[in-house]
């Protein structure tokens, strides 16, 4: 039976916004699984009765079998609303029907993913049967090109463990303006450069368990170095997105004497959903640890609480750096490397507090507070002549944190923080 679902979007800011809206799981909005996602259409309903077909993208971030469908679309000129998402200011309808072809409407031509099965061997489309060892995401001439290594040592002579790190971030605007666009090493190449590598996860025991928290190294121990596999890769009109899946992690919980069985061992995977949007100078990342579940619960959105430890290594000469971080809002930071009117920022924002931030001339380390589903933005602002005085906090605080994480445009009812 055909369905028609109204999606109401709320803008929590006191100004009009045009931005992406993500619905984590279409099932939460009671959208029935369609036989074919290509047979869906999304229409903007403007006040006054006019309608406009809108491009959208459906992703399966945990793989098609897991059943989750994430819907992403762009809400243009969304009128200002209530800061607490109390009422919507834009309406869309999602229904079954032939969707207009948005493939040639601009954005898809700038979004791209290359899948590398060996150094210099790449395929534009993802073949799940091919062992992908690295992915390069592009989001257009005003954005970034980011290469993520899924394996620890892409080459036999690789000097360090690159597993899960962004090993190259090309900033297109900086490249055009200065001739040097590599964010991680703009002056001279550094083979060790890498950004946003997860080095460790911590899992906490249940409150009554008398044991220390479990530390799980993501870089390996005793000579064994784990890697990631590609669980999803998709380029559509809205974003280029990949999901990196870690090797199995064993986590045990002692439920006794309150629950049965008294000991529960879970085999889990860390999922890192990495997305790039057209022309944005950042990439977003979602971190979720999901247990392997079989049977009727297989599609339930279950996740474990953990702490994530990040590390980055920069190939910079010893230039002065400024750290923008406020203990009042410890959810973001920016490290600025400045020299002669050129300011390169390395910024991170999350919907969790950032703790234990350590910044040296070549390394940045931090960790996230205990949480379930982290959403993060890795942002690389750049300023040069003739820009005015540098606002250390503005981009990471406003663009990355406020607009993407604290108060994004949201579909109602809010499902983001719903308990499982």
């Amino acid at each position, binding site marked *: 039976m055909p369905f028609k679902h109204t999606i109401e979007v709320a803008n929590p800011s006191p100004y009009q916004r045009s931005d992406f809206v993500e619905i984590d799981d279409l099932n939460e909005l009671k959208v029935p699984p369609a036989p074919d996602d290509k047979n869906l259409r999304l229409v903007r309903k403007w006040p006054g009765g006019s309608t406009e077909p809108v491009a959208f993208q459906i992703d399966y971030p945990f793989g098609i079998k897991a059943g989750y469908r994430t819907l992403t679309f762009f809400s243009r000129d969304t009128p200002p609303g209530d800061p607490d998402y109390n009422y919507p200011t834009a309406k869309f309808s999602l229904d079954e029907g032939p969707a207009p072809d948005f493939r040639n409407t601009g954005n898809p031509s700038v979004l791209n993913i290359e899948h590398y099965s060996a150094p210099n061997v790449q395929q534009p489309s993802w073949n799940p049967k091919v062992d992908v060892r690295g992915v390069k995401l592009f989001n257009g001439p005003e954005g970034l090109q980011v290469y993520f290594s899924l394996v620890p040592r892409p080459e036999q002579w690789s000097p360090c463990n690159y597993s899960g790190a962004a090993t190259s971030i090309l900033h297109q605007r900086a490249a055009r303006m*200065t*001739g040097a666009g590599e964010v991680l090493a703009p002056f*001279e190449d550094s083979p060790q450069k890498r950004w946003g590598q997860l080095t460790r996860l911590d899992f906490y025991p249940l409150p009554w368990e008398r044991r220390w928290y479990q530390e799980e190294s993501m870089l390996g121990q005793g000579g064994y170095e784990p890697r990631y596999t590609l669980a999803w890769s998709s380029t559509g009109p809205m974003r280029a997105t990949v999901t990196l899946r870690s090797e199995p992690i064993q986590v045990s919980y002692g439920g006794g004497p309150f629950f049965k069985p008294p000991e529960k061992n879970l085999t889990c995977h860390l999922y890192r959903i990495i997305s790039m949007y057209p022309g944005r100078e950042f990439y977003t990342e979602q971190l979720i640890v999901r247990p392997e579940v079989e049977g009727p619960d297989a599609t339930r959105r279950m996740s474990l609480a953990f702490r994530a430890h990040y590390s980055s290594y920069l190939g910079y*000469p010893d*230039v002065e750096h400024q750290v923008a971080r406020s203990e009042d809002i410890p959810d973001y930071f920016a490290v600025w490397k400045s020299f002669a*009117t050129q300011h390169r920022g390395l910024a991170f924002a999350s919907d969790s507090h950032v703790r234990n931030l350590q910044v040296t001339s070549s390394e940045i380390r931090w960790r996230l507070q205990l949480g379930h589903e982290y959403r993060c933005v890795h942002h690389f602002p750049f300023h*040069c002549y*003739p820009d005015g005085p540098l606002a250390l906090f503005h981009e990471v605080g406003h663009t990355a944190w406020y607009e993407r994480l604290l108060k994004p445009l949201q579909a109602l009812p809010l499902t983001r923080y719903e308990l499982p």
Partner: protein
Amino acid sequence: MALYEELFEKLFDEKPNEKLATEESAEAVRNRLKRRAREFLGNKEQADVVRNRLKRAAEEFDRHHANVFAINMCLHAASSIILSNPENLKGTLQDIQKIDVLKDKDPTTVLTVSVLYYLVKNDWDSDEAASEQSYRDQLQTLRSGFDAINWLIGDQAMNALGLIKSPPRMPVTGAIVQQQQQIGQQ
């Protein structure tokens, strides 16, 4: 010796605090640093890189509305040289801050334009490619571009550093030639 040259050469002072201890004369220190600076830029590979970057920036100047790109490329080229040889970077930056006229300027910008001026003056480059007229014209384009914005630091700081604006290029036209001849006759 102009201050901009002195600052550039100071960068190559690997032991800035040992000068007094070894009782090296000021003249000897200058010669040593000049030699080291020349050796650094005299490396053919390095010189080619610098020349190519300046050429590319000059090409940007010639493109419509691309002055901002060219200025930033030049600044990056000069910064790269400074940062690839940072033996006495901190000391040189501190020295800049001690100079009255320069102390409220960003010392990294002062140092970078000093190095850039040194580079576009082209006295350091003995390679044949550097004496080609087309390259010299390109360097002149860069100089004029930076002259137009007072080398980002203003007239006073330029004077203190010894940065001199290049004379405007005369267009080759009959009118100008005639005018010059008339001036000559007077």
